């Protein structure tokens, strides 16, 4: 059983490709219903990680930035689940989140990956995997992952047990 004191995990990546690889592993570990929040500055690697997550999950389309339309919905061949790639860069609070239907996405069996989650923090579920990106230097990033519920802790434990650099 996951224990609360082990609910945080740090990763260091050395390049964009490395960040993508970590994302792919994360994407392969998703079982449905997870909410993954990506918190970091412009250029921190949020889209790179998402590219990996979508590839690992099996998304049919390439991942590009969803800033303009806020949401990209990805599908895969093996089932009818959806991966929502949400970018809250242009949003500023619960009313906007409601306006784009974020609540519908958060409470179904799909996976939700959210960039700029700080802008809609009031509507996020308690159980989520929060990934904070820190810039160490031009190429290296530290990704601190924190779980805050059963589902996200299970995901974190999968990563802890199986991620090989």
């Amino acid at each position, binding site marked *: 059983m996951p224990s609360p004191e082990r609910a945080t995990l740090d990763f260091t990546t050395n390049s964009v490709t490395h960040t993508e690889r970590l994302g792919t592993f994360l994407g392969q570990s998703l079982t449905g219903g997870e909410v993954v929040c990506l918190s*970091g500055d412009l*250029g921190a690697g949020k889209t790179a990680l998402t590219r990996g997550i979508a590839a690992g999950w099996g998304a049919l389309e390439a991942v590009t930035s969803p800033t303009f*339309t806020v949401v990209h919905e990805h599908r895969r061949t093996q089932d009818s689940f959806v991966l929502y790639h949400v970018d809250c860069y242009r949003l500023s609070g619960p009313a906007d989140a*409601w306006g784009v239907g974020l609540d519908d996405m958060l409470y179904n069996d799909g996976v939700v990956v959210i960039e700029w989650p700080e*802008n809609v923090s009031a509507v996020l579920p308690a159980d989520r995997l929060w990934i904070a990106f820190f810039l160490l230097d031009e190429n290296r990033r530290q990704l601190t992952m924190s779980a805050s519920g059963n589902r996200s802790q299970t995901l974190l434990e999968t990563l802890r047990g199986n991620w090989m650099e």
Partner: protein
Amino acid sequence: MTLILGIETSCDETGVAVVENGTRLLSNVVASQVVLHAQYGGVFPEVASRAHVEAIVPVTQQAMDVAQVTLDDIDAIAVTRGPGLAGSLLVGVNFAKGLALGHGLPLVGVNHLEGHVYSLWLAETDTALQFPAVCLIVSGGHSEIVLIREHGDYTVVGSTIDDAAGEAFDKVARLLNLSYPGGPAIQHAADEGDPTTYAFPRALRGHGYNFSFSGLKTAVMRAVQPPHQGRRAPKSEGMTPEQLRPDVNVADVAASFQVAVVDVLVEKTIQAAATHNAAEIWMAGGVSANLLLREQMQEHSPLPVRYPPLALCVDNGAMIAAAGFFRYQQGYRDDLALDVRPMWPLVSIRDHMTKG
């Protein structure tokens, strides 16, 4: 004479227009958020299907009033199916279905990117448009180079692998504390700047027709923000004004950034046109309003260059009506089962439809 009512609700703008024979604009009404703010006296969510719901009926009525027509005069209804925001697209598509059902009118679903291409047909021109053409579609959400062999025949030969060109403008404008939308703000700031001050990256130059603007945005951020020691923490809640280095000249940054974007857009479009033996180069979408882009494309292109009038660069219903006209004319129809396609790529019409 064929009159098409065009409806566009894929993102922020509610646009409805009446177009005659795919080329003549009888009306073109766009409710932007600015208008909505004024009209309703409150702050509107920047992107909300509710805004479309509230705007769609008055905007449609106004489009018909300006064109001096009623639904009895309309031959078909064209509506944007995608790509775009699902909730926003649904408003337009369901409204269009209601009109089609209620008045027994044919319904034609249109790709938003195709709509941008057909904004070219609404421009006043002395010479007819020539196929094959290579069209650069650049906006806040899209950056594609499309080979168009004939009406409805599209091959995407290049697209962005990360951020759209217009998005790069928006994000850099925000970094520089300029206003939204970023395109006009950067262009204005760049007027006073020296474009050679910073050598910002031109990503994927000489490597095919795909674009990448994510690294450029990061390079601008590094150039303007104070150097950080140790690890930099993520932002706290909400948006705060960006801290700029004291020696940063915003005009120089804007000019250097703008020319970096324009360089790759121009180079790759001209190369694609040469490779595919295009007769003309076309540009469409919000970023095609950029004056430096227009000027540079015309200066460097050996082929005729066309772009839409400024008012039709942004999202609007007229371009959807124009695109819908050509589908309608070729016999393509959708039925009332028409669904939205939030991630719809631009594919040739014959590949996804049969003639009705």
